């Protein structure tokens, strides 16, 4: 699989640097579709604005809310999309969301072996490693070894469930609430929940050990 993430240098979109062949292609396709009135002139910009509001911070808030509000948690686990739509979080097309609850008996993680399905409406765009061969090849075959590479060790008496996304369903892992957080506010709780915890490759951070992702 490609190692583009090592070779790729992010290029700012301004100035005199010639855009890449592919950026030129993207621009040309977009402009032609707008000229032919198949897409509206402002639609891409509007979609970018929608995308910018979907980041792991949104997911962290949802997890924190589920930790403090048992009734919300129950509804979230019963129907992820419907419960989040009530909060104003909309989803594309027929996408569904299943929230996978981690417990002391079950640890969930999420992968897409066929492509790169990911709960983008909640977490935004996925990290490169999620889309690259090692994770996608090994998560379904040796999840414990994969988790160990993230520093996550799951005891043998805990069942690992790997969800391989193949349909319109997307998955968000609801990590276990860390010990010693009984008096935390929702904001403090959200700070313990990283993107990687919501993919299921790490647990939520312990208090005082908040990580950036």
């Amino acid at each position, binding site marked *: *699989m*490609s*190692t*583009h*993430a*090592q070779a*790729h240098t*992010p*290029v*700012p*979109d301004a100035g*005199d640097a*010639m*855009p*890449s062949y*592919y*950026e*030129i*292609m*993207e*621009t*040309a*396709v*977009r*402009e*032609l*579709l707008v000229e*032919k009135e*198949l*897409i509206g002139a402002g*639609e*891409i910009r509007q*979609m*970018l604005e929608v*995308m910018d509001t979907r980041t792991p911070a949104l997911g962290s808030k949802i997890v924190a809310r589920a930790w403090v509000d048992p009734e919300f948690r129950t509804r979230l686990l019963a129907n992820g999309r419907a419960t989040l739509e009530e909060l104003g979080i909309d989803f*594309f*097309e027929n996408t569904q969301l299943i929230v996978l609850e981690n417990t002391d008996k079950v640890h969930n993680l999420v992968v897409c*072996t*066929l*492509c*790169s399905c990911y709960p983008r409406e909640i977490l935004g*765009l996925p*990290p*490169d*490693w999620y*889309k*690259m*061969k*090692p*994770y*996608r*090849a*090994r998560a*379904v*075959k040796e999840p414990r070894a*994969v988790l160990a*590479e*993230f520093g996550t060790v799951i005891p043998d008496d805990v069942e690992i469930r790997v969800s*391989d996304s193949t349909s319109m369903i997307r998955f968000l892992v609801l990590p276990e609430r860390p010990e010693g957080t009984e008096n935390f506010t929702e904001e403090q709780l959200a700070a313990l929940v990283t993107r990687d915890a919501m993919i299921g490759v790490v647990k939520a951070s312990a208090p005082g050990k908040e990580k950036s992702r």
Partner: protein
Amino acid sequence: MTPTENLVKRLPTEMGGLDAGPLQRVEHEYAPWEKRCHALANVLDIHKIVNTEEKRRGIAALGSEMVEKLTYYQRWIVAFANILFEKRILAPEELARKMNEVAARHSATSKC
């Protein structure tokens, strides 16, 4: 069984269970054109001009060498071009001319 059958039976984009090395814990900040490409995909799907499943199929149809060597969004935009040609929404010549026009804007403004 002919050895080439496996190339057809297993899509180049399918990774589950293959032998692979250690995780590559890489992340990069998405370039603006990559985000625009993602936005384009969403808009095309909403309009049902190219749905998400067609995009996936189009990416696999690039074949194993391109799937391996092109980056994620590079695969997307080439697949979109091909699918739009198949659907007679765009024609190869018109896209090629438009690409020249776009490139020329930058040559015109670049300092020598």
